[in-house]
């Protein structure tokens, strides 16, 4: 059975914004935030995202599993990719630059030379601002948007009905998969299987995950067949459909839509017409390492 994300009505400001306006805002934010590496823009967007996030009135306890995933991705992207290997900064940070530790640093009595530049470090900070800003926008959605609204919203935004409903199901497929994974995990633990015991290299570890991955995948395939049957039996996809969920714009929604328009147009004009979106390291940051 498809389950939904753990949405609950909180009577928060976010609960009173039309889902269409929310999706439009989030995508406007995404486009604006990905069109620039300028720290001033990114900091502004981050503050906007923070205010937006606060409108949801969610608690850390509710959203922590989502944040754990984001923080893991950030760690991989920033610490490993940008800071250690420098890979993520390619194409944005010019080659060369000023070393953070020009003479190396002392580690357990030995001098270590590590080629981290001030520019790469600043770039990592910009990445953090951008990823956290975007994440705040999208993490909020499953916890604060009524699961009944997805299909009607996508359809109202111009998506074909069939695609709109299947997108809704796809969104709900993620928590359903997590639930199935948990059931299979329990079934295999009852047979003495412990995930912590998995040792060996990456391929060996993947191989030993088979007792979990195969039943979960097979169940996903079987349940998708059941879902298709259940939809067919009630005439899905045979013509133009209507939606039970009622969408209606209110005064505040127009404010959100207006702000989204400013965000996307302003962001794109600043980056691509006025060329203000380039990566720059502020002088105060250089001064910290002087």
């Amino acid at each position, binding site marked *: 059975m498809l389950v939904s994300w753990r949405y609950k009505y909180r009577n928060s400001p976010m609960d009173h914004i039309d889902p269409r306006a929310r999706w439009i805002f989030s995508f406007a934010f995404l486009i604006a935030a990905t069109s620039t590496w300028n720290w001033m823009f990114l900091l502004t967007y981050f503050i906007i995202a923070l205010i937006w996030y606060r409108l949801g009135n969610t608690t850390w306890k509710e959203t922590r599993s989502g944040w754990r995933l984001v923080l893991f991705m950030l760690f991989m992207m920033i610490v490993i990719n940008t800071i250690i290997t420098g890979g993520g900064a390619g194409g944005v940070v010019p080659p060369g630059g000023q070393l953070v530790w020009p003479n190396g640093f002392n580690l357990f009595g030995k001098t270590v030379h590590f080629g981290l530049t001030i520019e790469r470090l600043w770039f990592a900070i910009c990445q953090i601002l951008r990823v956290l800003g975007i994440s705040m926008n999208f993490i909020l959605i499953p916890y604060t948007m009524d699961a009944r609204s997805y299909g009607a919203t996508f359809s109202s935004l111009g998506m074909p009905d069939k695609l709109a409903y299947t997108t809704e199901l796809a969104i709900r497929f993620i928590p359903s998969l997590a639930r199935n994974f948990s059931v299979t995990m329990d079934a295999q*633990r009852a047979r003495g299987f412990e995930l912590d015991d998995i040792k060996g290299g990456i391929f060996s570890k993947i191989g030993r995950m088979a007792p979990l991955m195969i039943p979960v995948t097979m169940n996903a395939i079987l349940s998708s067949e059941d879902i298709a049957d259940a939809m067919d039996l009630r005439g899905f996809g045979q013509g133009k459909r209507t939606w039970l969920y009622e969408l209606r714009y209110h005064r505040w929604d127009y404010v959100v839509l207006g702000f989204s328009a400013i965000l996307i147009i302003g962001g794109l004009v600043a980056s691509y017409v006025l060329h203000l979106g380039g990566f720059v390291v502020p002088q105060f940051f250089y001064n910290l390492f002087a």
Partner: protein
Amino acid sequence: MAETDPLPLVIRDLSFQYRSRTEPAIVDISLELHPGEVMLLAGSSGCGKTTLLRCINGLIPHSYRGKLSGDILIFGQSNAGMKLAEISQKVGTLLQDPERQILGSYVLNEVCFGLENLGLPREEMIRRGEAALERLHILHLRDKETFGISGGEKQKVALAGVLAMQPKILLLDEPLASLDPASAREALLLFRELADQGMAIMLVEHRVEDVLTIEPERVVYMEAGRICFHGDIQGLVQVVDYHKIKLPAQVVVERAKSEPQPNFEPAVPQLDTSKPLIEFQQVHFRYHDDAPEVLHNINLKIHAGEVIAILGHNGSGKTTLVKQALGLLKPTKGKVFLEGVETQALTVAKAARTIGYVFQSPSQMLFAPTVKEELSFGPKNLGFDQETIAQNVQWAIETVHLEDELLTPPLALSFGQQKRVSIASVLSMRSRILMMDEPTAGQDYWNYQAFMDSILQMPGFDSIIFITHDLDLALIYANRIIVLFDGEIVADGKQFDVLQDKQKINQWRLVATSLLELNFQMYPKTGKFLRAEALAQLLD
């Protein structure tokens, strides 16, 4: 209905063979279904019942390809040229497992899903959706999340979704399979009521005895894709092999008089109450902080020599209870001990050395390329040596009678065989306690009786615990019954003590069966509870 009006359903010489199969699934089926009629379609697993329904509702050939011949006329019109949307307005289908049918995240959305597909205006959808909920007496569920409602309620919600489309024919594919006895009885009365209002109903069901209580006008019995019997109830109970479908106990007793006494000797050891194997001390449990409590103050001791049946309504906390014993769930308050060690201090892997737990659905655990590897998985995890693993695998496969399938991929087997592999994969761990969650679910009568007989006669278990909705199963196989109601143990003891008060049985949402009543009648003579075939030998 005027004399000249076409019948809701006429099937003529229908045959179908799935593209991937070498044998036809159904052969030369001819039937008529009249308005206001309930037709019971019975038969063992794989006899073609579901295929027949798929042909009627259009899933064959729209979703399942193969060789189809013959005619299906729905109100005089062949369904061959009809779109699924057209068929679905005339033929409503309720699938076996409501969990697999429900799409909407909230009840009203689920009920209105078909109406949305028909493009009806919102007001009309709400009107029809609420009317369907009202008709099934579940209007109070209107704004509830579908995930959070009980199994019986899910079944009714799924049915409301079908009824909202106002079909004239209703196809029901094992609608009682996941329901507790009281919910099943309510569902059956509802089907009767719908038929009495003019709907034509075709009901596929293994629980034949239960269906007979609503007096279906016609009964069809199928075997190997063909109709073997087509007539009324009286005809069926005389003709059909009572080993294959569950008939009322009185009928079986009459017909089994001339048969030899069934030989059944459970292999569990003598009762030993000196030291409990499992002990629950004032256990409370909730799934998360803001969720309601599921188990309330459970106090329980399980000893060697006990075969325990856990009964209770849908959502009463049966599965949650047994998962505590293995440590898959830990009590929110209170303590659970496994052989004297608190489960908080045990890993599940360690607990699995003592308790073998068979989950309800085999597809949740089967993964290996061969049955042999599947059966080796548990003992390997427990660190057994190669020789012991080989011995255990051989013993387990022989126990479930699947020796010929050792090299077959488990997922390529039938559902019943998969279920047996899942049990064998737990048996091979040689745990001292066997716990089974709905071991007979999805199996036909003959298979589940044979299966339970063999499990209970298997040596090596100190105790066997099984969750079931089938009162007769508890009656025949258990020596202790525990009844859970809304997360509390409301009865615990021998069959005679627990099941003698009919009023209480009804309160707990269990339903007294004909076998239970017959056993109580004969108890002064038998002194124990027996299956109908055994009772037949004791009648004068």
